[in-house]
């Protein structure tokens, strides 16, 4: 009697579970299908493409060449130059974005009238298309009619004759500048959310104990902001390492602005060199994957919180 009563609910619970599994599978299927078909499968296909050589003359003609494309890519100065440019661009622009973004966040955290308006203003660069960002800065740094050179000349300052995008070093600087302009505000908003999570009581208590503003920033704000800073850095590093549109519009990769994504796309689409292009894409993928791994590890706690029963 008792055993029977205990069994019944359990069986029913199991059937509820099975129904839930079926519903869950059905609800997950479309998303997983799209992601599997258009994101996961292509990665494996790219690896296969990269192990072959393709005839440019006869479409469809190919032969297996093993790691030849990789040794060609890794042996070329173009790849290592692009790697250097990508890393340099990432380190400098993400570093500047952190400093400027933090400064902006600290200002926005102060109470003043119009704070909500300022937050909207800060979203403007973020909302502007990257292609348009590139065009804007190209216009501003235009050698003859651009704002920068005209200003320098009017004020009698040196540098008014520099062709900014036409010279190695300066071209990368403009690219970094454009990226910092577009994404420092985004960084600021992420850090502002972190600042808002720090209880006011901590600052009040420190004030009572006689801590200066700088001391409070160093000892309270900064340490408590570390998680927000870490995520913001990972986010931005991921994006910076994949950068493509900015150098494409600014310089088409000329004058030391060729990034990993740019050389891969060029090899693939412009030169129609499928094997080498795929090898370069796979190498870009592997380079970024290290950072992706950090990202998933870091937000692992969030994922767990969202998915635990």
């Amino acid at each position, binding site marked *: 009697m008792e055993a029977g009563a205990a069994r019944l609910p359990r069986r029913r619970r199991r059937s509820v579970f099975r129904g839930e599994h079926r519903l869950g599978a059905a609800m997950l299927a479309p998303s997983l299908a799209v992601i599997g078909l258009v994101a996961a499968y292509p990665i494996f296909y790219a690896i296969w493409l990269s192990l072959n050589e393709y005839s440019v003359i006869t479409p469809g003609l190919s032969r297996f060449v093993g790691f030849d494309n990789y040794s060609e890519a890794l042996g070329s100065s173009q790849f290592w130059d692009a790697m250097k440019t990508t890393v340099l661009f990432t380190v400098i622009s993400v570093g500047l974005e952190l400093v400027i973004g933090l400064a902006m966040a600290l200002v926005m955290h102060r109470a003043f009238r119009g704070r909500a308006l300022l937050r909207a203003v800060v979203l403007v660069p973020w909302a502007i298309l990257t*292609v348009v960002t590139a065009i804007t800065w190209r216009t501003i740094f235009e050698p003859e009619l651009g704002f920068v050179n005209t200003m320098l000349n009017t004020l009698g300052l040196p540098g008014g004759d520099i062709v900014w995008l036409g010279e190695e070093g300066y071209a990368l600087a403009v690219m970094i500048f454009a990226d910092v302009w577009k994404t420092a505000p985004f960084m600021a*908003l992420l850090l502002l959310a972190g600042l808002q999570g720090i209880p006011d009581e901590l600052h009040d208590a420190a004030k009572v104990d006689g801590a200066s503003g700088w001391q409070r920033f160093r000892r309270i704000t900064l340490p408590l902001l570390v998680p927000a800073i870490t995520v913001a850095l990972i986010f931005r590093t991921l994006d910076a390492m994949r950068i493509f549109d900015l150098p494409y519009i600014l310089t088409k990769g000329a004058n030391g602005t060729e990034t990993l*994504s740019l050389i891969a796309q060029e090899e693939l689409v412009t030169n129609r060199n499928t094997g080498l292009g795929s090898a370069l894409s796979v190498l870009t993928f592997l380079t970024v994957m290290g950072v992706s791994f950090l*990202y998933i590890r870091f937000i692992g706690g969030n994922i767990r919180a969202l998915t635990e029963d």
Partner: protein
Amino acid sequence: MGRVEPKQVVLWLAVAAIVVFCLFPFYWLINTSLKSGADLSGAALLPPTPTLDNYTSIFEDDNFTMALRNSAIIAGSVTALSLLIGSFAGYALARLHLPFKFLILAIVLSISTFPPIAIAAPVFELWTDIGLYNTYLGLILPSLAFGLPLTVYILASFFRDIPRELEEAAMVDGASRFQAFRKIVVPLGAPGVVTAGLLVFIFVWNEFLFAITLTSTPERRPVPAAIAFFTGSQQFEIPLGTISAASVVVTVPLIVLVLIFQRRIVAGLTAGAVKG
């Protein structure tokens, strides 16, 4: 109050600096778009003889109007599809008892960190083989794959905050699990749906690599690609005025969205970042 404190002055100077930093470049673009002819070669902060010529000329240009149409179709479809199927997945991950949920969400999210070029290369080959190259669907699918992880993540976190009791009450009243999802969870999670929708729309409107790699004609080319291929009436010269006008036109809708939905967007952007 009454007297001006030095601290306040510093704060307002900092605010002014941020505003100029954020808005000046876009102002410069608008300024350039209102100039033509000889005015273009001066760095006047206001157009000496403002004209809408550049705007009339881009709207007479089929390449530009087609690009606007293409982008609207592609970004609209991706947003709708990703909200539809992403809300299913978000609900399943946030609410249903399923095995491997952690793993599934982790894999889905890691997709969003892939460099698009690693996808664009093989997809370009695949699409050429099966006839999806230079089609709407051919552009919608990859953008959807990149938009979905964000949608699923945002919706899962919004759905999770809706009290379970509401769903249970509906199911006691005879609703099926799916009906409870559709009639209770989705309407209550509407703010999350709006947030995710906005972010996906902006992401797709901005997308450039797929846009130039997977299209070949103006009939299918979205806005960012069209702007990149923009050539004015005079060849060999960057048509500054018209390019600026086109850039302003494609940016204004996004800025309006951002100003209206500022709060929602910031919530969505920080959702993936700060909790922890």
